[in-house]
């Protein structure tokens, strides 16, 4: 007899848990709908923060100009700064 009571109690507790579970699932969509409008300012805040990113990019050093060209495109400057070439006449004879 006591065994039957135990079975009955367990069955009732099981139904109770299932019923409570069903009630809590039904509440989720309501909570989501409530949260969504609050989430919008958060997105805005993120977007605002993104504005700082270009500042970081701008902070990267630009490639230096090809300063070599300043001298190497000026004939007279190259003439003036040229090292004297050492005359080392070739000792080779005949056709190579």
């Amino acid at each position, binding site marked *: 007899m006591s065994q039957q009571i135990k079975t009955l109690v367990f069955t009732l507790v099981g139904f109770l848990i299932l019923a409570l579970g069903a009630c809590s699932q039904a509440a989720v969509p309501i909570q989501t709908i409530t949260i969504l409008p609050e989430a919008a300012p958060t997105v805005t805040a993120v977007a605002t923060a993104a504005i700082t990113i270009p500042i970081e990019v701008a902070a990267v050093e630009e490639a230096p100009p090809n300063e070599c*060209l300043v001298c190497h495109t000026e004939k007279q400057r190259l003439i003036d700064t*040229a090292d004297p070439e050492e005359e080392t006449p070739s*000792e080779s004879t*005949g056709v*190579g």
Partner: protein
Amino acid sequence: MAPLEPWEKVLINGAVFTETVHGHIDCADCHQGDQLAADKEAAHTGLVSRPSKDAETVCGECHHNILATQDSSLHNTLAGYWTVLETRSVPENHATLGEMFGNHCGTCHTTCGDCHVSQPHEVGGGFINGHVFQRTPSMTRNCTACHGSRVGNEYLGKNEGIRADVHFRQGRMTCVSCHTGAQMHGQASNCNDCHAGPVDATLPERRHRYEGIQTPSCGSCHPAATTGQDGIEMHAQHSADLSCQVCHSVTYTSCDGCHVAISERTGNPFFATEATYLTFFIGQNPIRSLQRPYRYVPVRHIPIAPTSYEFYGENLLPNFDALPTWAHATPHNIQRNTPQTESCNACHGNAEIFLTADKVKPEELEANRPVIVEIVPPLLGVTLTNGITVTNGITTTGALPPAQTTP
């Protein structure tokens, strides 16, 4: 090629160069140095004047497809020299010959920049066109700057009394008209690198320029002539057993022994060739192959002697006789009409134009046995006995029309 003034060698054409693709690259990316330094000395500290010596790193960053095959380019490897040196020497001499090679032969090693930016370093260097990269090298300032004494002089008609090559004289063709960039840059090591194929087709490494398929080939432009299908009797008879140059080239340059040494006075390497002279001799083809089946080819004396490298050690070429000193040649002075094309008997029975033993130095006879012509092809169109005529090497009976007996 006229030498350039020091300033001229390094003057950049700023207006043009900066508009090109390479002009948008920071100078220091390739040349290093310190371009923000206050003076020339400091700016040039650590400068790499010829960055393409490290082509893999510098040029290969963008041109990886070209760099992928450079290990098979003879311009890069100079493998032909080593093939000859190794054949004529023995392994224990290779280290000494390597030192010689580095001091002399190796200076001809070509970098990307030696063809596409500057005149070759070996002949003085200097920008071709204000550092503007040239997709096509200049014939006279790049190609013949190195290949000048034989190929250049022949092709451009600089040997006195000998006309320029017909491809230049009439066609105004330049070196790259035949020797394309793909050939210059080497070949893929496997056919399947470019062509989809069911089987592995690894190509053997080229050890010299006459190995493997003919690139370039006269037949690429003259297929009917090289297969004897153009109605010309000589082509029909000889397209398989004579290289085109046997009939269509004229007198070309030969050289005798080159000797190399290091100057005691300056410490610089130098060479001296014993003699240079013009010849035309037909010899036997010492390297007959599927791609070059010719029985006869023109041969020229190359600048080698048993004592060529004796500055570096004695008897460095103990197997000197393993290769001829009269080498298979492809003279670059092609003419439509030559003394050989005048008649069959311009060659047949004419010992003058064949490399016979009497034209070879006694000490070089053994080395040249593979190329010496022992029996000169007989005269044609000669009636031996009544009714028996020799024509094109075939003895026939019965009278032949004059046009066929001596075409």
